């Protein structure tokens, strides 16, 4: 995993050195070319994890951007219209994430989505306390995060 990533990075730098243009677009293109070459060479080997993981990371990033923009528009609409539509509340969220890295990334992602804010993590690392701005239904909210952010994040990390 790490070895393949370093190899990919090295190929990207070789591409930059050969073309002699150090723009970020050129670097990204070199990275893509290196990824494609490594995918071609790796087809007969058994370990394919790196090649499924990189598209998943990009997909997660795009999904996060989409959720963030959607929630931002909702919050912004509520802010500039005179009437409040909010139903704030603090929700106990039982999480599947176990290790410190997983909990850290999950809470960062939840905190950065508008409308939700992490208040605290319990001592035994089983639940998160989340402050939610638009709480229609507790079970529905928990299910939404479980199927969205948490499942995608754990697929990448595990």
């Amino acid at each position, binding site marked *: 995993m790490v070895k393949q990533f370093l190899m990919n990075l090295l190929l990207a730098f070789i591409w930059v050195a050969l073309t002699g243009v150090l723009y970020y677009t050129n670097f990204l293109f070199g990275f893509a070319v290196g990824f494609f070459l490594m995918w071609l060479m790796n087809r007969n080997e058994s370990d394919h994890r790196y090649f499924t993981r990189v598209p998943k990371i990009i997909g997660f990033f795009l999904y996060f951007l989409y959720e*963030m923009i959607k929630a931002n528009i909702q*919050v912004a609409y509520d802010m500039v219209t005179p009437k409040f539509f909010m139903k704030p509340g603090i929700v106990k969220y039982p999480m599947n994430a176990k290790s410190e890295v997983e909990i850290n990334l999950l809470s960062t992602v939840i905190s950065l989505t508008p409308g939700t804010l992490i208040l605290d993590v319990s001592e035994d690392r089983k639940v998160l306390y989340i*402050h939610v701005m638009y709480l229609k239904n507790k079970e529905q909210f928990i299910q939404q995060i479980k199927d969205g952010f948490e499942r995608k994040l754990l697929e990448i990390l595990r």
Partner: protein
Amino acid sequence: MTAILIGILCTIGALAILIAAIGILRMPDFYLRLSVTVKAATLGGGLLLLCAAFYFPDEVSVTTKALAIIFFLTLTAPVAAHLIARAAYFIGTEQWKGTVRDDLAGMYDKETHTLGSGKESGGD
């Protein structure tokens, strides 16, 4: 083409920061203020920095610095928000009257500030 992209990103970023400023004035309680401010400020600052990176494409140092600032901004802002909100809950900051649910009530140990999960005795 790049100019149009920069214009769009700059406008969205500035609007996000403006809405955060309005939110500080209008929101009814402390947690909602915090919740609105942290996200919009991160998004707005990140978009403006991204514009700077697009505007100087042939200066590598500007691009790398802008990307590094965005990275550390997204890494640290949620931690700060979490600590401020936690401290506010300890000293008993009031919540808005429209609050519909509070699962955190009574979960803190008053002396040691350790937080239970409500699952210690439950058999799952």
